[in-house]
């Protein structure tokens, strides 16, 4: 029989405000095995833990139930406290009477009744707890960063600087990401590529960083400290070792009609291409869908002009298998598609563009050589209208429910840059709210208004109406002046919502990392663990976790790196001892458990067993504790009931069921 202590936390008034904690203590005393019960204002505090320590010693407790907040908050705290007092940490159970009780119920009697039941279920479970000992697993001292934008670059640099090797996997032919497409950055108007390219160069030159561009993660197996990842290196059709990056192939390539991804489809590129001049690596790829050689078999000009003999039409996709201790996701974002916002005439007029397209138009390396001009007729626009929140803050399924966060600032930047460079061009911004929290952000926005004369109108635009003369009639509301405005513009720029890169869900699935309905990866704790996934060993960097600007992304990238370094610095990790085990007397070796095990943790051994005096050799399932992650799939599959899960055994869960239904 266990000697159980029950500790009920008030959590200030968080619990005690709706749960009669004294009553819970009183009821606990009647539960089987309970030899001690007390309450305290803050069980997690030093003083609270001291109470636990004292009770374990004095009452010779063998098990603890702490009625407090979610085990996801303080289970570790209380396990450590138990361990310090000489009790096996797995003899602790938490009754969640805060998140699952006091915070959601108002009626004191009802909440107290429920808290008692939850306490009772925890007592029933701890009665059947057995001491468990975690195993150890190794840590592969190498990190993988998925995504080669500014987030991935910064994380990789920080990890490598701490002395650990890092691989970056980037889907496109070059690292650089969205930031490489930007012209200037807020709030200081630095030239984006001027501050990014040195970092790209640094990553490229770093002896501990290895970059796989034009590559994707194919599969992930394993777990924290010991991931095995397959990376598909797509056939570049150009030998990375031979290519000198002279660019002659691109110049001579006769297929020049493909839309440039880098320029957001506003210009064309050749079939063999590097996305932009400063690309890293400066080695082109052949777009096989566009290449004449691949389509018809005739051509081969690039191969003929290449002095280095680097063109290799027979190159195949290559699968690289590598082990990693930590994985950082930095997959970034894209703008939403605007095909469901055609009231803004995006698909009906070339002069209605997105902000990212404007970045390319303003950029010297962009489709117009940096001249601000209309894409329809090449004329300089004299009236430009910006529309904010296109697809952001939407309650319907057309757009996104969240604020994209960066649009207010980049629009102020665009407006300011245009007014600065083209003083005779008027700029109007239709906004719902101007959101500028951030150092020097509001000052920046005010400068756009006060020093550059940008016309901000509070109100949304209802419709952009292309006119026969090529102008765009913008029909909007001015809510402050109570007017409906009809404004003739030469160009309309839409601040389209941003969304996580489309491949991220697939990656999250491979990593078994949580992801929300908007495809942002979920952090382990919204406030206290913002750069970690709940899945151990997976870290989050940049917009894949939520909208953020460059300074925030860089900060988070550093934070993710530190968390990864903290993991890589360990020589061994303790494994979760809640693993499956088979009862060799019940197991009939049918293999069903091995079939459902996602980790390949179950093997079979011929073992001699003594079944009620009959000695015989039987085929028995054996679980490898280092591989088992404790999901329990095998326990339910097992037809003979031989498999059970430590810490969540059949008897324990049934005892909880019984306690709740009692």
């Amino acid at each position, binding site marked *: 029989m266990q000697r159980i202590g029950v500790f009920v936390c008030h959590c200030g008034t968080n619990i005690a405000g709706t749960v009669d904690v004294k009553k819970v203590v009183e009821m606990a005393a009647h539960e089987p095995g309970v030899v001690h019960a007390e309450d305290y204002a803050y069980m997690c505090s030093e003083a609270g833990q001291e109470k636990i320590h004292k009770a374990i010693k004095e009452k010779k407790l063998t098990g603890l139930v702490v009625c407090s907040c979610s085990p996801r908050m303080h289970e570790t705290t209380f396990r450590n406290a138990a361990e310090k007092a000489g009790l096996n940490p797995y003899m602790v159970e938490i009754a969640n009477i805060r998140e699952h009780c006091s915070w959601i119920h108002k009626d004191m009697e009802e909440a107290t009744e429920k808290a008692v039941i939850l306490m009772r279920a925890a007592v029933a479970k701890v009665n059947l707890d057995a001491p468990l000992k975690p195993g150890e697993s190794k840590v592969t001292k190498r990190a993988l960063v998925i995504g080669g934008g500014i987030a991935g670059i910064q994380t990789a640099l920080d990890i490598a600087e701490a002395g650990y090797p890092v691989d970056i996997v980037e889907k496109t032919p070059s690292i650089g990401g969205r930031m490489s497409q930007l012209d200037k950055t807020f709030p200081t108007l630095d030239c984006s590529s001027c501050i990014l390219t040195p970092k790209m160069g640094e990553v490229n030159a770093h002896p501990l960083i290895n970059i796989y561009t034009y590559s994707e993660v194919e599969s992930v197996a394993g777990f924290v400290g010991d991931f095995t990842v397959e990376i598909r290196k797509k056939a570049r059709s150009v030998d990375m070792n031979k290519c000198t990056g002279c660019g002659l192939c691109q110049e001579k390539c006769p297929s020049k009609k493909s839309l440039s991804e880098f320029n957001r489809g506003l210009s064309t590129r050749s079939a063999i291409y590097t996305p932009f001049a400063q690309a890293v690596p400066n080695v082109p790829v052949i777009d096989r869908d566009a290449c004449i050689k691949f389509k018809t078999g005739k051509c081969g000009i690039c191969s003929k002009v290449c002095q280095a003999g680097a063109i290799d039409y027979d190159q195949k996709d290559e699968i690289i298998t590598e082990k990693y201790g930590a994985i950082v996701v930095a997959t970034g974002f894209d703008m939403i598609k605007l095909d469901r916002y055609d*009231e803004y005439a995006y698909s009906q007029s070339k002069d209605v563009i997105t902000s990212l397209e404007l970045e390319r138009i303003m950029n010297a390396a962009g489709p117009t050589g940096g001249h601000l001009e209309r894409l329809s007729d090449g004329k300089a626009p004299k009236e430009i209208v910006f529309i904010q*929140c296109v697809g952001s*803050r*939407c*309650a*319907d399924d*057309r*757009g996104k429910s969240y604020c994209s966060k960066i649009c207010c600032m980049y629009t102020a930047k665009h407006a300011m840059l245009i007014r600065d460079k083209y003083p005779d061009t008027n700029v109007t911004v239709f906004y*719902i709210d101007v959101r500028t929290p951030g150092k020097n952000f509001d000052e920046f926005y005010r400068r756009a208004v006060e020093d550059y004369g940008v016309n901000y109108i*509070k*109100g*949304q*635009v*209802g*419709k952009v109406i292309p006119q026969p003369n090529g102008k765009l009639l913008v*029909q*909007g*509301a001015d*809510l402050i002046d*109570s007017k*409906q*405005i009809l404004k003739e513009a030469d160009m309309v720029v839409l601040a389209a919502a941003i969304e996580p890169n489309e491949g991220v869900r697939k990656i999250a699935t491979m990593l078994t990392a949580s992801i929300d309905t908007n495809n942002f990866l979920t952090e382990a704790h919204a406030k206290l663990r913002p750069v970690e996934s709940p899945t151990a060993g997976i870290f989050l960097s940049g917009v894949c976790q939520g909208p953020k600007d460059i300074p925030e992304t860089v900060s988070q990238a550093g934070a993710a790196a530190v968390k990864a370094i903290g993991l890589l610095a360990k020589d061994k990790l303790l494994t979760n001892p809640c693993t499956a085990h088979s009862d060799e007397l019940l197991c009939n070796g049918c293999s069903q458990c091995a079939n459902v095990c996602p980790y390949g943790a179950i093997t079979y051994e011929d073992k001699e067993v003594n079944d009620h005096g009959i000695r015989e050799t039987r085929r028995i399932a054996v679980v490898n504790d280092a591989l088992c992650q404790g999901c329990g799939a095998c326990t339910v599959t097992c037809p003979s009931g031989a498999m059970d899960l430590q810490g969540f055994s059949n008897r324990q869960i049934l005892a909880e069921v019984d306690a709740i239904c009692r």
Partner: protein
Amino acid sequence: MKTEKNRAEMIKEISGVNPLKCMKCGKCSASCPSYNEMDIKPHQFVSYVINEDIESLVNSKSLWKCLSCFACVERCPRDVKPGKLIDAARQIVVRERGNTYLDPDEIPELIDPDTPQQLLVSAFRRYRR
């Protein structure tokens, strides 16, 4: 006599609209083809309901200027459907006996030989009980 609170509740119930969802972006007013004819503007309807000033609403000429063209309903990013609120306010008026915006006696004056039946049917349904 119903209180303003009652009538505000009635409008919410008839329309099925939750005015609290509005974020005051003004896209309804930006889209409305009748905007200039309205004294209370489409984006202001929610405030009148929230503030329970239904008297002003039912006396507003906006009720009779709305075309039910659903441009505001289609484009509202918050799923507030201002057009339905306006219609609910109109319903409150026409459901009170004797209140109508269209009298059968007016009809001969208003029609011509080409007037389609549809026009009269629609107008009757929107303007009368």
